[in-house]
């Protein structure tokens, strides 16, 4: 069953090696569509009301984000910005590559002035007063990256599998500035199959169903006060230690509570089995590990299911 969206509010074709910063309001859907297929899209996203809160690109739910996943903001906010409502299997995603740059292509190809996502991002966000220093790591769509078992990473070892008409739908869970760009490196890599193609970007208005879904997502991640209140944005670039500064680490120093636990013979034999299985270097380590591991595995009240996922 598909979700009913509102009307198209914004519609643009991104020509090759371009992008656009687009406000998407809470409850609206950002749709990114392959016009011809095979084009990698790099993506940045900011809280429209506080550019310091931007998308956190990391493997919070694995190295490939898929339909049903959330896109979270960076710490200290760490809250859902977008929900992936639609994403075809042919859209392989990547959260590792930071977005291509001119220095990358200088090294790879010897070309000084090759198009690249860092530059395209900077041009897009400049419309909103941001600059290249505000670009964050990219959430890459239709980017068929791979890595080996020993952790060696390859950004585009495979051809782009995006098909004509493929689209990804992001539901905005807060007002955001979304910045999709067509990757500028695909003419010299398999990232876009050695040829740049256009991409369509649309914003669809909210609907009763989208409003309900937005509320559902947000309610499962109750707002948490950040550990520290927002500070004024620094204007000074040089870093110097503040004389007399005192740290205020949370729960520091730790308080330790000691207990003497009586175990039966059977319990103790089981504890030793755990140690042999690698859960702990000694009796105390194994007992503590077993208790805490059971709690976080079985008794985590905060681990609520995400809408649309079982």
């Amino acid at each position: 069953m598909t979700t009913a969206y509102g009307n198209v509010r914004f519609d643009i074709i991104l020509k090759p090696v371009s992008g656009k910063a687009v406000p998407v309001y809470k409850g609206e859907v950002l749709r990114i569509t392959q016009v011809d297929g095979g084009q990698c899209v790099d993506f940045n996203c900011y809280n429209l009301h506080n550019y310091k809160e931007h998308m956190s690109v990391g493997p919070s739910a694995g190295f490939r984000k898929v339909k049903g996943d959330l896109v979270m903001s960076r710490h200290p906010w760490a809250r859902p910005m977008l929900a992936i409502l639609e994403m075809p299997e042919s859209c392989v995603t990547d959260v590792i590559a930071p977005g291509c740059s001119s220095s990358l292509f200088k090294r790879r190809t010897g070309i000084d002035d090759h198009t690249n996502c860092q530059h395209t991002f900077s041009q897009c966000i400049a419309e909103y007063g941001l600059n290249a220093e505000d670009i964050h790591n990219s959430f890459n769509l239709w980017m068929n990256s791979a890595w080996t078992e020993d952790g060696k990473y390859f950004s585009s070892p495979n051809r782009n599998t995006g098909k004509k008409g493929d689209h990804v739908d992001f539901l905005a869970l807060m007002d955001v500035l979304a910045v999709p760009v067509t990757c500028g490196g695909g003419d010299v890599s398999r990232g876009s199959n050695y040829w740049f193609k256009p991409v369509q970007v649309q914003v669809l208005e909210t609907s009763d169903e989208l409003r309900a879904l937005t509320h559902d997502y947000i309610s499962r991640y109750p707002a948490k006060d950040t550990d520290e209140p927002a500070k004024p944005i620094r204007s000074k670039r040089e870093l110097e230690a503040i004389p007399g500064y005192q740290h205020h680490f949370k729960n520091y120093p730790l308080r330790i509570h000691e207990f003497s636990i009586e175990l039966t013979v059977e319990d103790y034999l089981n504890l030793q089995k755990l140690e042999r299985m690698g859960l702990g270097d000694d009796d105390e380590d194994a007992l503590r590990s077993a208790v805490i591991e059971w709690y976080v595995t079985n008794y985590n009240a905060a681990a609520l299911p995400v809408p649309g996922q079982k």
Partner: protein
Amino acid sequence: MIDECHKVIVRFNQQQLQLLDILKNSGKFGSTYEEIVRSVFRLYIKQTLDRSQT
């Protein structure tokens, strides 16, 4: 040689103790920290060793 009853000294920090408090307040695992540690340990054993035997 293992005695009839074996005592293990175990330490928890205050954050870990909060988890034990949640279990304590549920009333399902015992009324003292010692009882809770023992009963949760047995649950873990049941889950882990049973799984490793299947």
